[in-house]
């Protein structure tokens, strides 16, 4: 990076810090060890030790580790580890992975229900804090229990989607943009380095000074990436309170609350207090989903509203009111309600049981990484 040396050092320290945090998260969450079981939903959160371990985001954490190492080498040439072609190969794989996950998530959301119609903007759930714009709807951090259902009433593929996400980040699109940005930067840096080297008689320029050494190709692409990253940063910043809610989640009640707060577009969630005798899963919950400003598509209450009431426990009742005329009511027994009542499905309970590990710190790290990446991109553009 051109400009003051100390500034490059600061940014290198930031990205290394993010990489270290992500590595620690990988280790603590044990996602890399237990991943197979996570996907299959067999891992009860007692096994993970709820409150001690949480769910990581395997792919996002891995890519952050790699991005931190690679960007540190861009900011400070002395910290360069691998040659540029090796990094390009690494991030090409990452790009392919997140592109596949984005497409797959999109497909699943289409199969699973009208997610995009109900949750426009698809911010769909701040739950995983991975980012906006993809499959939408469910707070993976908190779980299926409430928010997922509140935000995604009537989505048959929901549990499957949650289970399928396993320890991966729920919203791969921002990470796809990150990996594309890394490829772009590596490409431009190599370009400028070779130009500098040839201009200086083969002395070989380091990363320093690359900003002023030449003109980047496709600057418009770089600008678009910067804008996307800026948008992602403010999107994350807006959802920091949601992360705070997740970090406070202690028992099942709080997990439900966290999910309710962070997931989907639920606005108001009422829930039965858990301070009741045995049968802790029992509760009454009324979820009114999707009331956001002018967004009529989400409004299930006004006009085309749905109010959903659920009672789980020895008997489970589910009442749905669709439309202004309260179109229907369903009451189901405990066995019949198994698919949607909190704690009933394995995938649901598994997802609900494990909150995201250090979500607020993870979000701050993503913000810091985004700022560093934006500075580097602008320097190159």
């Amino acid at each position: 990076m051109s400009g003051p040396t100390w500034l490059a050092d600061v940014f290198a320290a930031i990205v290394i810090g993010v990489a270290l945090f992500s590595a620690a998260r990988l280790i603590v969450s044990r996602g890399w060890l237990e991943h197979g079981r996570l996907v299959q939903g067999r891992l009860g959160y007692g096994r993970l030790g709820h409150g001690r371990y949480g769910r990581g985001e395997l792919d996002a954490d891995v890519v952050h580790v790699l991005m931190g190492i690679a960007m540190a080498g861009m900011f400070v040439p002395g910290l360069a580890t691998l040659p540029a072609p090796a990094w390009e190969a690494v991030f090409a794989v990452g790009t392919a992975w997140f592109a596949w996950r984005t497409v797959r998530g999109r497909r699943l959301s289409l199969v699973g229900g009208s997610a995009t119609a109900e949750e426009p903007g698809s911010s769909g759930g701040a739950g995983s804090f991975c980012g906006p714009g993809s499959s939408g709807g469910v707070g993976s951090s908190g779980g299926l229990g409430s928010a997922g259902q509140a935000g995604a009433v009537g989505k048959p593929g929901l549990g499957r989607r949650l289970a399928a996400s396993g320890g991966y980040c729920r919203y791969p699109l921002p990470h796809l943009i990150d990996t594309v940005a890394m490829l772009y930067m590596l490409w431009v840096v190599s370009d400028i380095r070779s130009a500098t080297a040839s201009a200086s008689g083969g002395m070989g320029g380091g990363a320093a000074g690359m900003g002023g050494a030449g003109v980047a190709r496709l600057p418009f692409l770089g600008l678009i990436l910067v804008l996307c990253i800026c948008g992602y940063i403010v999107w994350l910043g807006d959802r920091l309170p949601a992360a705070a809610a997740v970090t406070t989640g202690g028992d099942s009640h709080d997990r439900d609350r966290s999910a309710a707060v962070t997931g989907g577009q639920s606005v108001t969630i009422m829930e039965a207090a858990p301070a009741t005798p045995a049968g802790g899963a029992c509760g009454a919950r009324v979820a009114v989903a999707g009331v956001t400003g002018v967004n009529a598509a989400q409004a299930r209450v006004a006009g085309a509203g749905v109010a959903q009431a659920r009672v789980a426990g020895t008997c489970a009742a589910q009442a749905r009111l669709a439309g202004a005329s309260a179109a229907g009511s369903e009451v189901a027994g405990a066995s019949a309600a198994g698919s949607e009542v909190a704690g009933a499905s394995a995938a649901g309970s598994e997802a609900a049981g494990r909150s995201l590990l250090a979500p607020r710190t993870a979000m701050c790290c993503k913000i810091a990484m985004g700022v560093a990446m934006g500075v580097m991109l602008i320097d190159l553009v």
Partner: protein
Amino acid sequence: MSSEGAATHIRWLQRDRDGGAQGDRARGDRARGDRARDRPATWEAPDVRRWLQLGLAAIWLLDGVLQYQPFMFTRAFGQMLAASAAGNPAVIADPITWAAGIVQHNPTTTNAAFATIQLALGLGIAWRRTLRVALAASIVWSVAVWWLGEGLGGVLFGGASPLSGAPGAVILYALLAVLLWPAGAGRPANDARPPRFVAAGPLGVSAARVLWLVLWGSLAYFCVTAVNRTGQGLHDAVAGMAADEPGWMASINRGAASVLAHRGLPVSIVLAVVLAVIAIGIFLSAPAARVTIVLAVVVSALIWIVAQDLGELLARGATDPNSGPLLILVALAYWPLGSQRAGPAAVQTAVVQAAADEAAVGQVAVDQVAMEVAGRTAR
């Protein structure tokens, strides 16, 4: 535990666990005690105002990132600031010269501070807990930069042009901070009446419209100042942008410049009329106001692309994206909110809360609560 027992303990999830209303707690207790215990841990999906605030935050963030460009850490940045003093009266120009001198002597320190401040403003607006502080700080910062960094946008000596970003892009940040100030600050808590448009929330309809009139009216006026109505004035302004731009952008500049050649006066008059129509259109009925705002967005986008070259972001040395995106944000803040926005979160929350209170007190069955919710919202 029975489901009836559960129904007696309905409570709001937004509230603290220990501070949540018990089933037998009176409604007044709930209103009094729990509001104070509300934590920002609650998160609601952004409404229109919040989205616009996030747009402003993103632009501040972009400004901060741009400020980290290597060019800004050189003395050239201070010289650029000093150049804005030219043409201004001494009372305005002297502080500019003084500030530019400081920047020239300490380019690294001062620019790092500038960049960090702008980053902090963007992040502060994005983070809800610091929203008001960040918006207030952004007003102060914008006014200071407008004066010391942009020489008041050249409005005092006739050098301003809408095509070059008059009345100064940075003052539009301050305007946006005012227009997007969190609504309801001075309104009663039970006042769920939605404003007619976002900008009317903090100021009221009349004041917001007057600000709109001043902004777009001044742009119309700047179009027909002596500098801008000369035969080659607009041509030179647009053609001069092509330097340092990528080929496709330079070709747009050249094409537009050829259209404007020797047509400065008629084009200026047409542009002034269009801007005047925009200035007045906000006072018309809602459908006409919508047309006006669409026109404002289109004109702003055209100016941003053709005359401002995307704020010269693709050429080195840009400190902000110029006025185009900000004018678009301003225009969106005036978009009339239709009756369907009658479903803002506040209204819905109030309805559901009333139902929950009844359930908590009277052990209303859960399905009855839901029925009531639907009925009330339908009404």
